[in-house]
Each structure stands twice: as structure tokens, then as C-alpha cells.
């Protein structure tokens, strides 16, 4: 039954879009900076999935190549991002984003 469905790239793309949305909503609702950051990873993954799905749909290898770069970016972001979070934690003993509001107005 399920097997009868022809899974076109569109399926993957819709899935990716939902994943992207969940990631962005997660960023908005969570207060823990680490989790917020994980949500960004979800969004990047959604993009990756989109690229790969398009690679398949367009029959073009570029989409897959781009994922490599995304991975590098993600890695670099994680390295720096976590370092920032750690640095802040050292001072404040807390990773809740809402408490970081010295700058406002």
C-alpha cells in the first residue's frame, strides 16, 4: 500500500520544509542557548536535505557537493558557538538566553 506511492523528491522537500520550520520554531520557544543552537542545526539539516533532494530531482551532483560546505560551516559554528556559550557560562553560571539582557532598549 505504502509501497504503491511513488516517492518523488517533492516528498523530501516538503519534509525538509517542515524540519526547517520546526527548527526555527524551536529557536523561538526554547530558552536554553544550547538547545537553541541545536535547533539551528536542525535548520541546517533541513537545508542539506533540500540540497540533496534537489540534486536528485535535477540529476545534478552540485547539490550533494554543497552539503560538504554546509557541514564545514556547521562545524565551525559549533566550535565557535559553544566556545562563546562556555565563556559566558564561566561568568554567569547559566545558559538561559533570557537572562542575557544587559543590552536592551
Amino acid at each position, binding site marked *: 500500500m505504502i509501497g504503491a506511492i511513488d516517492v518523488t523528491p517533492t516528498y523530501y522537500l516538503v519534509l525538509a520544509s517542515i524540519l526547517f520550520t520546526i527548527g*526555527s520554531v524551536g*529557536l*523561538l*520557544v*526554547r*530558552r536554553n542557548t544550547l538547545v*537553541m543552537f541545536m535547533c539551528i542545526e536542525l535548520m541546517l539539516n533541513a537545508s542539506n536535505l533540500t540540497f540533496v533532494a534537489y540534486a536528485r530531482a535535477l540529476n545534478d551532483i552540485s547539490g550533494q557537493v554543497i552539503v560538504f560546505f554546509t557541514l564545514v560551516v556547521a562545524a565551525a559554528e559549533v566550535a565557535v558557538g559553544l566556545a562563546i556559550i562556555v565563556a559566558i557560562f564561566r561568568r554567569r553560571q547559566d545558559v538561559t*538566553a*533570557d537572562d*542575557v*539582557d*544587559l*543590552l*536592551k*532598549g
Partner: protein
Amino acid sequence: MTARDVLDLAWVIPVLPAVGAAILLLFGKRIGEPKAGWLATMMMALAFLASVIAFFALRSLPPDQRHNVSDGFTWIESGGFRADFRFLVDPLSSTMTLFVTGVGTLIHLYSIGYMHGDERYPRFFAYMNLFAASMLVLVLGSNFLLTFLGWEGVGLCSYLLISFWFERNAAAVAGKKAFVTNRVGDFGFMLAMFLIFSKVGSLDYSQMGGAARLSQSTVTAIALLLFLGAIGKSAQLPLHIWLPDAMEGPTPVSALIHAATMVTAGVFLVVRAHPFFEFSDHAGTVVAWVGAITALFAATVALVQNDIKRVLAWSTISQLGYMFLAAGVGAYAAAIFLMIVHAFFKALLFLGAGSVIHGMHDEQDMRRMGGLRKYMPITAGTFVVGWLAIAGVFPLAGFWAKDEILARAYFDGSYALWAVGLVGALLTAFYMTRQVYLVFYGHERWRESDAPVAVEDEPHEPPWTMTVPLIALAGLSMVGGLISLPFTKLHLEFLTSWLEPVLADAPAPEISSFGGAFALSTLALAFAIVGIVVGRALYLNGLNADGTDPAAERLGGFANVLANAYYLDVGLARFVSGPVTAFARLLSVGIDHSIIDGAVNGVGGLAREGGRGLRRVQTGLVRNYALAIVFGTVALLVYVTTQARF
């Protein structure tokens, strides 16, 4: 040098006093007290001399060519508009210059003594000279605009001289009041000039014959607007309010400006612009009635005044009313005639009053005078001449002038005007009699007690510089009537025939019956004598024993109304100034500050509020910022949805 060459130099006449004024303004302090006065007087005398020369030069021309425009330059020129700085000498302006400079010289001379010891002595003569120059520009101007220059110049000098003793608040206020009230008239004058230019294409007097071709409404509008100017300057109802207050100025000023010359400028303007009044059907009537009513009104007010100068001031208003009455009925020459003789006797009266004030150490209240003829015989004598002249006693100057006006009104068919004039004449005789008796006869009410007053404190006759003008003016008041006697057949109406070229548009009607004229004169004389007799009867001993005024006593409560000039001034203050001030305050505080500036600041406040709002949005929470980003994204996506091809 031909006569025309001489007349081309007419600019000299106003320039002489102008130079005097300039010198005195710049170097007055250095010139010092007596010299400044003498310089000013000399300038006036020279101007008089020049006027006389101009008069004879003009006379030497045939009557129809007695019209000359002097050398000068273009003053204002723009587009099709042009006004020259040139002086017109014709019989009218020549006459005016003669009496302005003549009387002016005498009053300058008088002032030398009168102003003795004043701390701003040179300044006074500077203003006086400036006034004379302005007045001469006014009468000699070859177009309305130049006349307006003089018109405003005399207004300025009037302001400066009324508030000459500006330390006194009343003087300062009076000066301002005079100028502002005059400006109301100027409003009319200016609009009249605009209308004339737009309809006639020029402001030159030589072009005013064109008035004949204007529509009736235009010509009436012009005439009435000019008359508005004249009302302001000549203190006619309802713009008369400034003149009584103007008595705050030094007495020579009152004599020169507020009796003899400046205030008659309105009459001069009407005569100068007579084509408009002639060709208008109704303007003349308006002028005559305003004049008549003012004459009567002012005369009644004069009945109960106690200030020696205020009586004369109201009298001046009244006499000016007569002049307008004359002008209104087309008797322009008669108006000028009265103007001239009025200048003589009213200047005389004012100077006499000044002499009294001088002698009484600045006392102006007639209730504290009396019996002065013993101490000031020359003053008293000349004052009596002035009194009889203004009262219209034969054969003094006033008789002839007033008689001519009343006759013209009568033969014009305006019996009501004539009757009003007659009643006015009676009142005039009465209030002048009252003044003379209060001041020069009766008890010496100025003595506080029976204690003898030190000799130097007693009233005394002024120095010769002051008495000479009195005597001269008294002489003129006596014989002034000679310049125009109503005996056409004998060619004795010199003034009328002299002015004829100017007034060609307004020929005097032939007075048909000499007998009728004689009867009218007799009646007028009778009225004057009645006034004198009644006045003498009431005031022979001055005031009543209890210090009350006999006439006021008989008038009862109405005396108060008269004393306050029918409350016009007060009413104006209360019902016009009050609301106007309130309105102005509303504009400046309510509208300007609150609404307009408030709106401006409101816009600023709006930005500030917006900033505060944005500030609240900027919570400092990173998730909120992300929310804003997502919100923007959604908005963009919504927009994109409207653009996309599905």
C-alpha cells in the same frame, strides 16, 4: 531768471527747514540753547521768504498758467508706476506754504522763549523744523505719494512732539494714540492711492482730471477712502479721539501742529483731490455732514472743559468740522479761507494759552486762574482779539470766513447744514467767552490763600520773543478777513479768484441776491453775539462762589456726558480695545503658542513616543529578536504569495 525758473527752485522751501532739522539733530547739543532756537526760526523765516518769492513769481504768470512743477528726481518707478520727487507750485500750494511758513515762523519765535530751560531744547527745534519741512512737502507735493510722504512726516513729528515730555506717561500714551489713530486714516489714504493708480494710471495731481471718466462707484470709493485719511489727520468723528490728548505736548506744538497746520492737512487733501469729490454724487454730502456733526459735537464738548488747552483743542475740532462742511458743499475756497484765518486766530489763542500757562507756572486748569488781565496785559489783549475773531464778530477774520461757509451751505440748499453751523457758531461764541472770562476776569482763584505771593511767583508777562508773535497774530486775526471779502463786484474775493485755476472743476455758484447774503450774515452775527452775551452773563465773575461751574450747573448731569466727550473715547476703549486685546491674546497664547507651536512640538512628541514604543519592543531578549526576524519572514512570504504564479 523767469518766473518759471524761480518756481523750479521750489524745492528750496521744504529743504530749508529740513536742513535745519538735520543740523539740529546731529549737532543740536553743541549748538546749545538759544542758538538752536534762533537757527530753527531763521530757517523758517527763510522758508517764508522763499514762499513769498514763489508767490510773487506765480502771480506774475497768467492765471491759467499758474501751475509749475519744480526740479527734482524720480522717486519710485516700477513697471508703469512712477512717482516723482517734484514740487508743485500752484495757487493752492502757494497759499498753503505762505501761511504754514508764516505762522510757523511766528510759533518758532515764540518757542524760543517758551521752551527756555528745557533739557531737550535743541531737539525740540529739530522736531519743529522737521515738522515744517514735512508739512511743506505735504502741501507742495506734485503727486499723492509725495503728499503722503509729508503726511506721514507730519504724523511722525506730531508723535515726537506730543510725547516730547515722554517722562510723563500721559504724554507718551497720547503720542502713540495720535500716531495710531492717524494710521487708521492712512489705511484709507493708501487704498485710495492704489485705487487711483489702478484706475487713472498715475498719482500725479495733473492727471486727476481723469476722474471725470471713472465710474460713479469708483470715484465715490476713492473720495471716501481719501476722506478716511482726512478724518484721521483732521480729527473728525470718529477719529477725533487723539486730538484732545495731543494737548500733552508743549503748547507751541499744539498751536502749530494741532491747530494751525497739520490738522488742516485733511482739508487740504480734500481740496487737492476735489475732482473725486466733485464727480461723486454722494461723497460731498458725506463730507459735509461729517464736518457739520463734528462741528456741533465738538462745540458742545468744549462748553464744559476746564483745561485751558482742551477747550481750544475741542474748538479746533469744531472749526475743522466747519472746513469740511464747506468742502462738502463744494465751497473749497471757503474752506481754505477758514483754514487760513483759523490758523491765525487759533495759533494766537494757543500761544496766548501757552503764555498763560507759562505765566502761571504750568497751571492749565482754568478753575485756578482768573483776573489775569492785570498781570498779563498783552496776553490778555491779544487773547481777546482771538476770542472775538473765532466767535465771528464783525469785522474780524472769523466773521468773514464763517459767514462765507454758512452762506454757501444755505445757497446750496443744505438748510440743515446751515442750521447746524449756526448753532455751532453760537456755542463757539459761548465757550470762548467762558474761557476768556474764566482766565482773565473775575477772582484771582490762583491765590491759595490771602497770603501775598512773592512777586516772582506771580503771573507775569512772557519775554518779547513770545509777545511779538502774539501781537503779530492778533493783527492778522483782525485783518485776515481782507484776503477774501464777499464782494464779487468789487473784486475783493482775492482768495477765491486766486484759487480759481486750481478749482476750475468746481466753480462757485453765483450768489444771486446780495440782500439775502447780507441777511444771513446779520443772523450769524446775531447768534455769535447771543453766545457772547450769555457767556458773559454767566461767567462775569468767573466760577460760582462754591467753585462750581455755572454752565455745568445748569446742564446738570449732561455736563458729565459732555466733559467726557459723550464717552466715545471710553467706549472705544471698552468695546473695541478690550475685545481686540482679548482676541490678540487668544491668537498669541491660544493659537500661536498652543495650537501651532503645539502641533509642531506634537510632531516631535510623536517621534519621541514612537521611539519609546520601539524601545519597549527592543527587550534585550534574543528570542524576541528572532521572533521579529520570523515575523518579517512571514510578512515577506505573504507578500510573495500575492506575487507568485502557482
